């Protein structure tokens, strides 16, 4: 299967084969970052615009470096410097950028549906780099790439997702991706942040646990979500202290999980709140591997969306497959 879509707006609409193709492509890009000269000419002469309406350090940097390692010209526009502060609408901003003929627009926005809105109005491929509480597809892909790297598969794994599910685009994209590839997903968090309707999010249903203890029982993968203070317009739990005690991930939780369980977090972490420092810095934590894989995933996405149909003179546009952990990942 190939990836023929014009945009990457979310995981929910993707076929399992498309997801696997994206992951396979990402694996081929992993070694570029290991080379002395970390650059391939795949997107030479192309322009990638990173349009960030919401503050972000790692995602924006990751997309920027990914574009540059593919030899694309990357332009970053953040809300503080854009015309939006002057009252320009999203649509007008997009039309003006469009007039400069970009080959791909990466958009991060605090409002759900903003990338869909742009996709309807623009000719350029749109990559959703996180929209409100809706989706964050490249995060789910990099999480999956990390799981595949360490577990060799996704199918049949028990994955526990802990924390603020209600406001989390990372949780949504991960739930779609992991269930599409056959993992068993369980979620847990305070009742105010894990509405019962989440059980209906995916066709096969989703198990909602009342406690972290239940959710991590026998888990192969534990994903801890960030408490997003910036997305909460009202108090959903009484105090950070109480949250840390009842919904934070502690060392004794790991005893309940599978012996080779791995722990992930989309970052940036709130140490001592949703995850204890001992775990975040411990041997089971893959938080930094996630960042590394994020680069490979974003290179793959930009390559497939911004480069796919254009003829390229170089023969080296297809990176060589000699990834450092090749063979560990399953190729379905």
């Amino acid at each position, binding site marked *: 299967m190939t990836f023929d879509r014009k945009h990457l707006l979310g995981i929910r609409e993707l076929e399992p084969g498309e997801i696997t193709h994206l992951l396979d492509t990402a694996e081929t890009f992993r070694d570029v970052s290991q080379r002395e000269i970390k650059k391939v000419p795949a997107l030479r002469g192309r322009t990638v615009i990173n349009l960030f309406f919401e503050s972000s350090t790692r995602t924006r940097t990751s997309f920027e470096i990914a574009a540059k390692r593919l030899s694309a010209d990357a332009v970053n526009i953040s809300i503080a410097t854009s015309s939006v502060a002057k009252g320009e609408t999203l649509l007008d901003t997009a039309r003006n950028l469009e007039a400069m003929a970009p080959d791909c627009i990466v958009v991060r926005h605090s409002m759900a549906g903003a990338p869909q809105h742009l996709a309807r109005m623009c000719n350029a491929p749109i990559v959703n780099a996180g929209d409100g509480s809706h989706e964050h597809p490249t995060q789910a892909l990099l999480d999956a790439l990390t799981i595949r790297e360490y577990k060799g598969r996704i199918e049949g794994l028990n994955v526990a997702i802990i924390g603020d599910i209600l406001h989390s685009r990372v949780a949504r994209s991960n739930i779609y991706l992991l269930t599409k590839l056959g993992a068993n997903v369980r979620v847990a968090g305070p009742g105010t942040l894990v509405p019962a*309707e989440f059980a209906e999010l995916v066709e096969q249903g989703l198990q909602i646990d009342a406690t972290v203890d239940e959710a991590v029982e026998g888990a192969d993968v534990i994903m801890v979500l960030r408490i997003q203070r910036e997305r909460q317009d009202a108090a959903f739990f009484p105090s950070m202290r109480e949250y840390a005690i009842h919904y934070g991930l502690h060392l004794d939780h790991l005893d309940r999980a599978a012996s080779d369980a791995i722990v992930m977090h989309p970052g940036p972490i709130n140490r001592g709140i949703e995850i204890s420092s001992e775990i975040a810095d411990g041997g089971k934590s893959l938080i930094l591997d996630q960042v590394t894989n994020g680069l490979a995933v974003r290179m793959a996405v930009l390559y497939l969306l911004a480069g796919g149909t254009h003829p390229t003179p170089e023969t080296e546009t297809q990176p060589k497959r000699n990834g450092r952990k090749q063979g560990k990942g399953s190729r379905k």
Partner: protein
Amino acid sequence: MKLLVANGYVIDPATGVNAGKNLLIEEGRVVGIMDRGEPKPEDAEVFDATGLIVAPGFIDMHVHLREPGQEYKETIATGAAAAVAGGWTSVCAMPNTDPVNDNPAVTRFIIEQGQRAQLANVFPVGAVTKGSAGKELAEMGEMKDAGIVAVSDDGRPIPSAGMMRRAMEYAHGFGLTIVDHCQDLSLSAGGAMHEGKWSLILGLKGIPASAEEVDAIRDCVLAKQTGAKIHLAHVSTRGTLDAVRRARELGLNVTCEVAPHHWTLPDEAVQEYDTNTKMNPPLRSAEHIGALREGLRDGTVDAIATDHAPHHADEKALEFDQAPFGIVGLETAIGLTFELVHQGVISLERLVELCSTRPAQIFDLKDRGTLRKDAFGDVTILDPEMDWTFDVSRSRSKSRNTPFDKRRFKGAAVATIVAGRVVYLNAEFARLRLKQDEVAKR
């Protein structure tokens, strides 16, 4: 001036007429409903209604005409033009204009603009509280003298039970019905669509059904205490209809209306983030749609009202969260109501009751909602079989915010008569008529 609506099938639930009859109107008033065999007055202009339904003029209890203050969205004249094109002979204009219709000067301005347009009757609804701010009572008595037909803080729900109680007691003294947009703001704050599976999928903040139901139940409890007349606007949930049923059993003066989009489209329709699916109350889930249809069928629902809410294209081109709530509805409501008829949910007689008889009774619009002798000569003429497609680019409204563009319909209002004057004739219908006449002449 006399107008004879001849050879039509008259449905007037208020008088129990449901038969092939002629209708004679003179000097703006109904002279009478007569048998087809009776001699036709020679000096009367004749409207041939063969094969058509002749109903008392339809009354839309809930529209936003945006004048004064937001004339870039709609004016009273353009709104009235859209109304008659949709089969409505009367519209009740909600007070959330700028300035708010909370005093007799604004009331008189709206009435005058309506008269100037010479299309639909425009009946203003006054505010319950000054500026619809929910704090002090508005001058309901003076506004009633100036011509309001009801009071409402539509769009700005009356926040406290204490304020609502006082408003009911005061309005009751003037015989005014309070129209309440039921929405507990502490439950709905920040919401953009129905709270449920789809709001979670789309990552949009939800407006739970309970936000409407909590206020509806509150209003019913207060209606019992005060004896006041309340009318629940654009009901969208099963729980609200259950509250209305219970209120009826208790003999309370509680009535309600439903808007066509709420029984037609589910919350799932929001999935492309099309801002023309954003309205308040929001499109609900299948469970609630089923309850609305049942309420329309079993009589719990009193009236069909459009909640016509024009917005400029620029406003609707914003992000879903940023775009304003509401859609235009005057020109598609009857088409959507005929869908209920053709699906066997309601009868034609019930359609007339929902769109004319009951609205007139609820707002106490004297001599309207019926074709009895001396009633106003307001008539809506329907062709239940006409196939047509709604083309929003040809709408008479100033705004284009509808999810029903290019929708195909069966059944339409083909002519609208206000005070004995034909103010709207469907172009396609007129063309076919002309063709028939030509054939007949040969």
